């Protein structure tokens, strides 16, 4: 291994290629760093901060930091996991996430991370926000109750589908996904189920209609292995 192109995560040397981020190189090497708003093939956007690591003593997002030779990254530490759990708890109480009745259950990255990081309770009071459900599209439905504002649909629609169907509006805690049509309805956009934007949502906010619970328990994405053991899948899925 060329030590010029390696860095260290929790004592383990990780090789990297030019232009790879710390997160990309780590996943490639089979080292899991929790993340929600990174998707291979889309530009890292640094929205969720779950991938926060400590590099040379400084907190930073692994998804937006380029790998450099010799840097030392702290990842799998109780202190960082505490912070990540806190972020997850805030996401859970901010939206309306009712896993028991959600068809994304078992395939949901938010839920998988919460299991993996052993989040036992939401800890904070729920906001119980009144969020929109958009059923206007014949093939897909939007349930904004579950949106975590990761921005992936926005990027996939503009960077890959070249349609700009989605946009993030508002700032801070008020930021939310909107549809780029005069009516604000998905049904009035040229969104199609075959769009990349239809398949990147990490939670159950953008879903095909009438499919529901087609995949039985036991065969869902995170039924057998926790997300932290699925680094290969997480690097090879392509937007």
């Amino acid at each position: 291994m060329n030590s010029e192109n390696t860095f260290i995560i929790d004592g383990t040397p990780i090789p990297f290629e030019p232009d790879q981020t710390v997160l990309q190189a780590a996943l490639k090497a089979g080292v899991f760093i929790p993340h929600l708003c990174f998707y291979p093939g889309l530009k890292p956007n640094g929205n969720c901060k779950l991938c926060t690591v400590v590099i040379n003593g400084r907190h930073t997002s692994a998804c937006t930091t380029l790998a450099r030779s010799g840097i030392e990254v702290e990842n799998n530490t109780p202190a960082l996991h505490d912070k990540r759990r806190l972020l997850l708890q805030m996401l859970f109480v901010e939206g309306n996430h009712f896993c028991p009745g959600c068809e994304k259950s078992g395939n949901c990255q938010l839920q998988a991370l919460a299991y993996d990081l052993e989040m036992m309770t939401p800890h904070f009071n729920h906001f119980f926000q009144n969020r929109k459900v958009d059923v206007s599209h014949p093939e897909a439905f939007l349930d904004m109750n579950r949106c975590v504002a990761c921005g992936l649909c926005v990027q996939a629609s503009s960077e890959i589908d070249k349609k700009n169907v989605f946009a993030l509006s508002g700032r801070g805690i008020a930021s939310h996904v909107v549809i780029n049509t005069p009516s604000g309805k998905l049904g009035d956009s040229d969104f199609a189920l075959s769009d990349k934007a239809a398949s990147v949502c990490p939670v159950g906010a953008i879903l095909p209609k009438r499919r529901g619970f087609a995949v039985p328990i036991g065969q869902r994405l995170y039924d057998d292995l926790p997300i932290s053991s699925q680094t290969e899948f997480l690097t090879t899925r392509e937007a």
Partner: protein
Amino acid sequence: MFELENAKTTQGLRRIAIDPVSRVEGHGKVTLLLDEQNKIHQARLHIVEFRGFEIFIKGRPYWEVPVTVQRLCGICPVSHQLAACKAMDAIIGAKQLTPTAEKLRRLMHYGQLVQSNAVHFYHLASPDLLLGFDCEPTQRNIIGVAMKYPDIAKQGILIRKYGQEVIRHTAGKRIHGTGAIPGGVNKALTAAERDELKKDLPQLIEWAQGGVELVERYFEANPAFFNSFGLFESSMMGMVREDGALDIYHGDLRVKDAKGEPIIDRFNYETYTQVLREEVKPWSYMKFPYIEKLGPEKGWYKVGPLARLQTCDFIPSPLAEAARQKMLAIGNDQPVHSTLSYNWARIIEVLHGLEVIQDLLDDPDVLGKDLTVKGERQEEGIGVIEAPRGVLIHHYKVNEDDQVTMCNLIVSTTHNNQAMNTAIRSVAMQFLDGRVISEGLLNHIECAIRAYDPCLSCATHALGKMPLQVELDDAEGQCLSLLRRDSSGRVHMSDIHDD
């Protein structure tokens, strides 16, 4: 007006409230009004439940509903899932499921019948049957049974576990699975899973027969008590298939009167809104359903094991049918109505469920791979099944954007509302009237309620730990004395003096 539903006056009467703290979806409470001589003037069972679900399901996509509504219940979620799925089958125009899908759903449902009835019979009812009503409350639970009758307790636990395994292999999980979906099922059964389920069946059937014999012996030892406990007559409603046989998954509904004569020989459950009405009473959140043409006072009925074993013409499995005949014989050509017979009917159904599961597992269709169908989209769907506790009605309307716009649920416990109220009034008159109230006597009331297996927190009582507080109040609501069972099962009595 029902006797003891409303006291003529509350002047000078003391109020006793049996107020179990609820763990599941309902909160149940019994109140009694007594005079100075402990004569009972009023007895009511109040329940709060379910209304929230009908509201928050509105606006949700229809395919989500079967999974969401099963959260109504931690004991018989499969029933809600299946009733909702049957309604959604209608919505998506799936008139006839594939043979594999229907048989796998049946397997799931009979697994549910076995597990739920077994919990009730072995964990909740057997302590009263085997150890006696007045037995020390700290012992009157499944642990007490396990100490005195270890084999029976073990059999009960294993039969229940088997029912749960059947559910797991068909629904994906023992509780709150996702197996049934609109138009069919999502999971095929593998040959290995089938073989695993077949392995223990003969042994379990033998044990269930033993359970039936246990009740038969109990009855023979004390027929007078058995026949009279909580006795009251009522009409009955249950599901029957075309040839009149018991069917808990699909069929028409039949209503018989207290003498066993048909009131409505059969009606298609999709017409339930023309047959049934629900009355609202100011003192309970749970509605009181009745047969419309008979009116609220004559038209109420009971549902559940005892009702369906007597509304059907026969049970379509030999061992259970033989057991049913024995039970019916105690009625001397009249229907059996005593409250304790519910437990008899329940264990007969465990036996029946196991027999049906055996037949299903021998059927090659259950290994099929053709799992779903759909047809022409409809706006309205009604799904009805026999849940372990009785007829369960799910009714939905769905708009063209696939959102639920209307949801009406009539659950088994609601059908039994009037019956349970009548049962506690009967027990109160029989055992409590004019006597000083004790824990053992109050257990008679609880036992009458438990016979209907309502979805209250009864499950916790299995461990003798249901915290229960009985207050004796004067007519002004001033607490005079307090009987309290704490979570360890100990009973404390305290008098409250104000000087």
